[in-house]
């Protein structure tokens, strides 16, 4: 009987990985909490200078209410005077929101993409770039690793200009400038200036876990640098994980406003 049980156990051990390896699934919304919350302290060591794969922060990545920022400068107060956010301490009634992302589908821009809906994303490393492909907005960013320096006085871009380097074998650091001032930092309507500098740190703890830290340095808008993402845990998803589309379609937003938001006006 014991032998039978042992054989069954061994068979199960082999069957489970085999089944999951064969599973073909489409439209994955994210890893289940049971996977995200698993300690994974026994995972294999992190490979050197490799952060490739599909990563998921789960609910921690969704910062609906926005972030508590460093104090605003007078410039920031003036810049955001007409921002009417849908969430956070300055939230207005739904029908009055003028968030350019949620009302007209402007690009979330960078760094909002890593400060708001940080849904699953895929990192691809090439010989001279690191590409990040985001489920949210189905956008991508190019991070140059060919040794170039950041441009001087660049034209603004929604997603800025990024270069990256390895600080050590397990920590990849990205520096970004040139983000378009029209983008907000988050749902709370925190502003930024064209002088914004962002540092992202991706530290691979082991094979299955990585930590993301984002620091905002914008002396024109904030009295000091601040860190909205501090070692946010990312879990490696299976290689066959097929990300859902999560796209802001102006047609769908208009339909939502017509049916819901515009009818919530307080008389």
């Amino acid at each position: 009987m014991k032998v039978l049980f042992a054989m069954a156990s061994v068979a199960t051990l082999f069957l489970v990985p085999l089944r999951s390896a064969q599973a073909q699934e489409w439209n994955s919304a994210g890893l289940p909490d049971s996977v995200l919350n698993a300690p994974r302290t026994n995972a294999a060591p992190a490979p050197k200078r490799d952060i490739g794969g599909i990563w998921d922060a789960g609910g921690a990545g969704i910062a609906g209410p926005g972030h508590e920022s460093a104090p605003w400068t007078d410039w920031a107060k003036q810049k955001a005077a007409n921002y009417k956010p849908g969430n956070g301490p300055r939230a207005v009634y739904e029908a009055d929101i003028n968030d350019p992302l949620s009302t007209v589908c402007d690009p979330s821009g960078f760094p909002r993409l890593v400060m708001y809906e940080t849904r699953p994303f895929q990192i691809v490393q090439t010989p001279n770039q690191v590409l990040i492909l985001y489920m949210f907005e189905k956008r991508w960013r190019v991070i140059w690793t060919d040794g170039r320096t950041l441009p001087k006085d660049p034209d603004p871009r929604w997603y800025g200009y990024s270069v990256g380097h390895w600080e050590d074998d397990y920590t990849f650091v990205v520096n970004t400038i040139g983000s378009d001032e029209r983008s907000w930092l988050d749902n709370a309507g925190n502003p930024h200036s064209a002088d914004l500098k962002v540092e992202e740190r991706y530290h691979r703890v082991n094979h299955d876990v990585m930590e993301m830290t984002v620091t905002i340095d914008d002396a024109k808008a904030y009295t000091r640098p601040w860190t909205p993402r501090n070692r946010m845990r990312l879990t490696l998803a299976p290689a066959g994980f097929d990300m859902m589309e999560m796209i802001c379609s102006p047609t769908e937003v208009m339909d939502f406003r017509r049916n819901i938001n515009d009818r919530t006006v307080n008389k």
Partner: protein
Amino acid sequence: MKGIFVGLVLGVVSVLVIPAPLVAHHGTASFDTSKDLTLKGTVTEWIWANPHCFLKFDAMDDTGAMRNWAVEVSNPTDMTKRGWARSSFKIGDMVTVILQPVKNGAPIGRLKTVALPDGSTLTAMGPAPAATPAPAQ
């Protein structure tokens, strides 16, 4: 009997469900989050889209007026994690919806739970159900 059972289930669910933010991109300033309204109605449309899915249904309120309600939930990604799908509703389905109505009296709300014709219940607020069905199409 089935009605009593559904009522019991809804009652238990409404106690168990902890109020929590439903939607990521906006707050709840326009909605009366202290009030739950239970309506039985007939599905007229199910919109599976960003930034929010919403269910439309015809239902009679306590004044006897038949109105077409539109009630929002979160986006397809979040709802997939809760076991909802594009195919969760068909036009003509009889449903019982518990919602938080908008303050201005319009037939608009935030959906909390919905009982389906087969007796099962989908939830839109509070912690996601522990067993999340694997999405597959």
